[in-house]
């Protein structure tokens, strides 16, 4: 896949949700069904495009720059204009995002999208921001897409209103606004010290930097990293997370399962690109922070899981564990732990994201007392004088044996999240642990701490979730909850993805291993990006 002619498919995951969202603004707020259809169409199309990109980017072996696709935005050459880059890592994240969005959107159709205004465009813009952040090869453009996804996440978090959400939203927004300011400081500092915003260009410049510039780049990257780490939920910058995720409406929280992963993704991408093997004196800069912070996050997350009384809070801490695990793995790999760890971590990331999303979607139906969404709708409509009341949920199929279904789904989520065999979580953990045990680390004790924490976090997950599961499914003798097919369906789809991931583990794992190898070879990325030809030039050459 080369950039001989503009491969518009690369920009599709950004543009499709953008146009869908923009169109939705023209629709009246009451035409929610039309928006839903448009949204589903958009997500499905994005999914197809992302899968196609994944298929194309997974070429069998690493062959120079050919495994990476470029898109020169506005047809300006690389360090000057903005370039989109699709490689294995990005493609994987794109697919994951769309995979998550489809069930989430379906779930929202069961009622949540009626809880407030403009749910649909916000979700589309969130997807746009996420996909943009995964694709962009430019630091400032990354900031912009971060803002897009953050702005949408603010809106989505506040979706439905109410004291809890607004309070959580206030914290979430305040912390992230501060983070965004730091991001700006960091990006501009890097520009000031190196004169470039292009990640590939920066990667190439790293080795030849003077002492002073290097220091400034380190400072800029460090300050910027704080912003990413806030988003990734590293301890001690993660306290906003559990409240926010808990407060968010179910589909929103489920979609948020990928939000921390954006922070993780960017840290991964930039660490290896800027502080990778080719970075001269900067190689491995900050890796210990990732390791230590990641481990502390896992520890804090597992403590939080055990200390949680509600499933929502527990799920939020599961998000922390997942992100801490991947972060510390990335740190270890920077320290030279090898591709095995990274591949395992990526696999784990995939699995844990899907599983936490499923869990977030499950919370609502599981902990629902009588009436459910219908009652909630009525209540909010009364309390706030919502002037556009709609008919009650028209898609209300009650599924028989709901409790068994919920219980089985919950159990599968538990198994996947705790990393118990045989589901995908286990495979990811085995991958990481296996790699870690084989690695020769400068500080072996940290490696052992990682191993211990991964195992302990699985145990804590098991204990915590089983505690709540027993309470929910075994200790209550109330009537089984009413369940909408539109609610359980998406959860089942997510769980089915986990099962599929388990069956297709070898293919996936090999993809991850190649991804990890590519990530560890920043030269492929940077040479490819800087050599990407403009369409205007290639057309001239053709004539």
């Amino acid at each position, binding site marked *: 896949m080369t950039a001989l002619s503009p491969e518009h498919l690369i920009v599709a995951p950004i543009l499709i949700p953008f*146009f869908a969202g923009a169109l939705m603004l023209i629709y009246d707020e009451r035409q929610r069904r039309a928006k839903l259809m448009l949204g589903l169409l958009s997500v499905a199309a994005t999914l197809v495009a992302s899968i196609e990109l994944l298929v194309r980017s997974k070429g069998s072996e690493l062959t120079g720059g050919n495994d990476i696709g470029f898109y020169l935005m506005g047809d300006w050459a690389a360090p000057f204009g903005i370039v989109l880059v699709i490689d294995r890592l990005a493609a994987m994240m794109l697919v994951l995002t769309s995979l998550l969005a489809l069930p989430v959107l379906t779930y929202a159709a069961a009622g949540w999208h009626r809880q407030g205004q403009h749910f649909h465009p916000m979700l589309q813009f969130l997807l746009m921001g996420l996909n943009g952040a995964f694709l962009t090869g430019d630091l400032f453009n990354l900031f912009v897409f971060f803002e897009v996804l953050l702005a949408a996440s603010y809106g989505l978090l506040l979706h439905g209103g109410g004291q809890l959400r607004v309070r959580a939203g206030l914290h979430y927004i305040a912390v992230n606004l501060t983070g965004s300011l730091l991001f700006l400081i960091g990006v501009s500092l890097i520009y000031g010290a190196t004169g470039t915003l292009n990640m590939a260009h920066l990667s190439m410049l790293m080795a030849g930097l003077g002492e002073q510039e*290097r220091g400034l780049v380190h400072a800029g990257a460090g300050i910027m990293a704080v912003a990413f780490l806030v988003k990734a939920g590293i301890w001690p910058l993660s306290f906003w997370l559990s409240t926010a995720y808990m407060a968010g409406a179910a589909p929103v929280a489920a979609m948020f399962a990928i939000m921390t992963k954006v922070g993780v993704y960017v840290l991964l991408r930039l660490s290896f690109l800027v502080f990778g093997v080719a970075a001269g004196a900067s190689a491995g800069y900050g890796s210990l922070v990732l390791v230590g912070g990641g481990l502390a996050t896992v520890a804090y997350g597992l403590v939080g899981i055990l200390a949680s009384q509600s499933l929502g809070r527990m799920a939020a801490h599961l998000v922390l564990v997942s992100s801490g695990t991947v972060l510390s793995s990335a740190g270890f790999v920077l320290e030279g732990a090898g591709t095995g760890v990274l591949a395992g971590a990526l696999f784990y990331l995939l699995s844990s994201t899907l599983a936490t999303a499923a869990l977030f979607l499950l919370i609502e139906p599981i902990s629902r007392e009588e009436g459910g969404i219908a009652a909630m709708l009525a209540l909010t409509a009364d309390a706030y004088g919502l002037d556009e009341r709609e008919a009650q949920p028209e898609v209300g199929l009650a599924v028989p044996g709901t409790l068994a279904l919920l219980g089985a789904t919950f159990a599968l989520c538990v198994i996947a999240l705790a990393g118990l065999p045989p589901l995908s979580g286990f495979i990811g953990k085995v991958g990481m642990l296996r790699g870690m045990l084989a690695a020769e680390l400068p500080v072996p004790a940290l490696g052992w701490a990682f191993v211990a924490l991964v195992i302990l976090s699985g145990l804590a997950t098991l204990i915590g979730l089983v505690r709540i599961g027993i309470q929910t499914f075994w200790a209550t003798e109330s009537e089984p909850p009413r369940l909408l097919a539109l609610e359980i369906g998406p959860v089942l789809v997510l769980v089915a993805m986990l099962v599929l991931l388990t069956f297709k583990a070898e293919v996936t794992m090999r993809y991850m291993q190649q991804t990890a190898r590519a990530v560890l070879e920043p030269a492929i990325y940077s040479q490819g990006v800087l050599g990407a030809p403009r369409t205007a030039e290639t057309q001239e050459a053709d004539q």
Partner: protein
Amino acid sequence: MMEGNLLLVLVALPFLAAVVASTVSSRAHNAAAWSSGLLLAAGLGILWVLRAPLESGQVVRATVRWVPSVGLDLSFRMDAFVWLFATLVFAIAILVLIYARYYLAKSDPVPRFHGFLMLFTGAMVGMLTSGNILMLVVFWELTSLVSFLLIGYWHQGQAARDGARMALIVTGIGGLCLLLAMLILGQIAGSYDLDRVLAAGDAVREHPFYPLVLVLFLLGCFTKSAQMPFHFWLPGAMAAPTPVSAFLHSATMVKAGVFLLIRFTPVLGETQLWFFLVTGTGMATLVLGSMIALFRHDLKGLLAYSTISHLGLITALAGIGSPGAILAAIFHIVNHAVFKASLFMAAGIIDHESGTRDMRRLSGLMRLMPVTGSLAIVASAAMAGVPLLNGFISKEMFFAEAADWHNGTWLDNSLPWLATLAGVFAVAYSVRFITSVFFGPPPVDLPKTPHEPPAWMRRPVEFLVLACLVIGMLPGVTLGPALNLAAEAALVRDLPYKDIAVWHGINLPLVMSLVALAGGVAIMAAFGARIAQGPEGPPLLHRWRAQRLFERVLLLATWRAPRFLHRSFGTERLQPQLRLVVLLAIAAGAAGVWQGLSQAPQPLGNPLNPAFAAMWVAGGACAVGAAWMAKYHRFAALVLLGGAGLVTCLTFAWLSAPDLAVTQLLVEIVTTALLLLGLRWLPKRKEEILGDRLLKAKLRRARDLVIAVAGGAGLAAIAYVILTQPLIPNVGDWFLRNAYQEGGGTNVVNVILVDFRAFDTFGEITVLAIVGITVYALLRRFRPAPESEEPTVAENAVEAARMADALLVPAVIMRWMFPVLLTVAAYLFVRGHDLPGGGFSAGVTLSIAFLLQYLAHDVRWVESRLTVLPIRWMGIGLLIAGVTGLGAFVFGYPFLTAHAQYVALPLIGEVPAATALIFDAGVFALVVGATILMLIAIAHQSLRIARQRERDAAPDREAA
């Protein structure tokens, strides 16, 4: 090859049975039992077929690839040792199925029971046959999980829930330890393949991690096999239905641990450490378990502790690890399974028929259920180690190993004594079971009147008791060959054939057996009555129940400590969070710059303009003033903020950034209006906030001041360092050179925004749109605080009349300014590409024009004259920008590729015609929409409140 496939089928059969059983109707007891039973019988058939190659010392292997890249493959491997175990599992599973068919009530959900039971069987067989040590852990964990579900089968009861949870936690922890052990083991051996691991014993034992691996491994085995001190989950698991106890918690699952001990003896065994840990634990469990069993009043409790103690015996043998010990261990695994399963079933029958399991209430059942009684007596005799029964022989072999095998340690020397002591207790509890349940006076006051169960419920017990007898009398014929093959397979080496006989003459083991028999009977004779009246548990020790201890530890470890830690290392308050963010950012910056500051800043710079400095004296004063006043004098802070912003604008203009100055100015105007709109909804701050003057608060402020100064100084220092360094003209120069020729505009900043980096702008306008709709959505749900609903000055009736005129004259001027601002907006827009301005500034200018009208009049006045549909403007703006970007596709160029040209029109001359201008128009429309939406959405709140008040007041008026 054929054998390999058969092996796969064998493993798959129980899972298939699980699927079948869980899909039948919940009332179809027979269908579930028959389907499962037949499939299991087929499994036994396969085992029969596989017997032949195994007898010739072959190992049957089969592999299904799963995740080879992490060493996880579904590889299966069957040798004689596994074969024996697997046969045991299948056979007992069938018996349990038969038994359960009559044991379960009509109302019990059968598919779930059978489904889980078969799932468990599958997991167990998978564990036994795993040829990959990671897969072994997979199946191992699966047995734990299914066991959890089976114990919790009757989850209405608290005991079942607690028992299930505890079993899962204990065995789960063990499983994770085992996983780690296997991972390290695989690392050392270089493979997860069991054959290669088994062959790597020497390497493993010499490896520095050997002790670690061993401990982790043993934690896994001991928790599963209920070795002290992890034994307590097993009695708790007795809340499970009896078929489950018979199957999992006596015959099969708990044997998984000892199975693994024996399996890994060639790798991990034969060291001093192994012996001490394994045999030591085994002996302790053996002795303590048998002693506690004697004091249990609950029938299943007694059997559970008896099981624990027998598992201890097997463990002790595995720790010894000599060929004889291994043979004895395997033999005892089989024997124990046979007699204990039958005993559990018998106990289940008693429970089922009499309604109680309390031995103090049961009595004289022999008269009411003679057949069951007889069977139970034989089985418990086997448990006690009475000669001519199977239990006797393997126990004799244990005594023999304890007495004959030597390695000269103190533990070794104490083995015979401990073994005999345990034997004494074993006899005693067996005697207690028999005498207290079946003999004595007829029972009184039982929940049900006991009678013999249905015949088919008894059949499995009969079969097992028969096995006790046959094996007990003809061990060499029945099991001898299989046991010898199994021991060879387990130790992976050839061993001399060991004949298993009933009679070895009068020797030390026989003496030990006799002492045990006599001692046991004597104890019961002496203390029987007192035990029955005593507490549930041995004297002194009963207060000290491990289960309670465990629960306390568990509570501490999984609830109290985490809560404490979570509170100590986390917070839900915003201020500490922001403080951390700032502090870490300062630290990150400082850490990086540490190297950078090695060079002193160059004395390069522009000469000072005192006016510039003076402006910043004003600007700085405004900033500090705003910080000072924001708490008690919000309005003042707002004005001061405006002052600081203004000086910032001036700085931009002064330092060659006119576009920034214009934009910042316009944004500042709108921001001020926005903040003012918000101010109305904040609480009046008339008096001082409580506690503001306390020392603690002052210290907090001092600390924050230090952080703030550090942050400011750091940022200033970095800025100064950069400012005094020569510019690195990587990208900027290119833009300057190409803006006009390639981008078709002279204002490079604007060309960057709408062409070179238009994608940033594209994202930026999306942010604006999102925020717009978010603000709108949130305010649709807005609810003010009660005090904010008080009428404002304007609504105060007395003032209202006087105030009506106040705006009249200014409003005229403000109206005049509307078309002027419109024109200025157009001006800014049109010039943007070449001179300061652009779509964004134009858009904000236009929205200021609208804002001004809202300021001059009221909402209703404006909206009856000017209709703005902000959200639609936003949508259209986004679409214009996006479609302009898409336009390039038509010409085969990437998104947002701009086309710039000056078109010469007749008379008029050259007119710029850049697609970037259309893009900028999109930006313009969006900005207008978003800005107006935000302003108006907030402004509308007052109107809504006023309307609300009118509505509330209306009924009162009517009443009056």
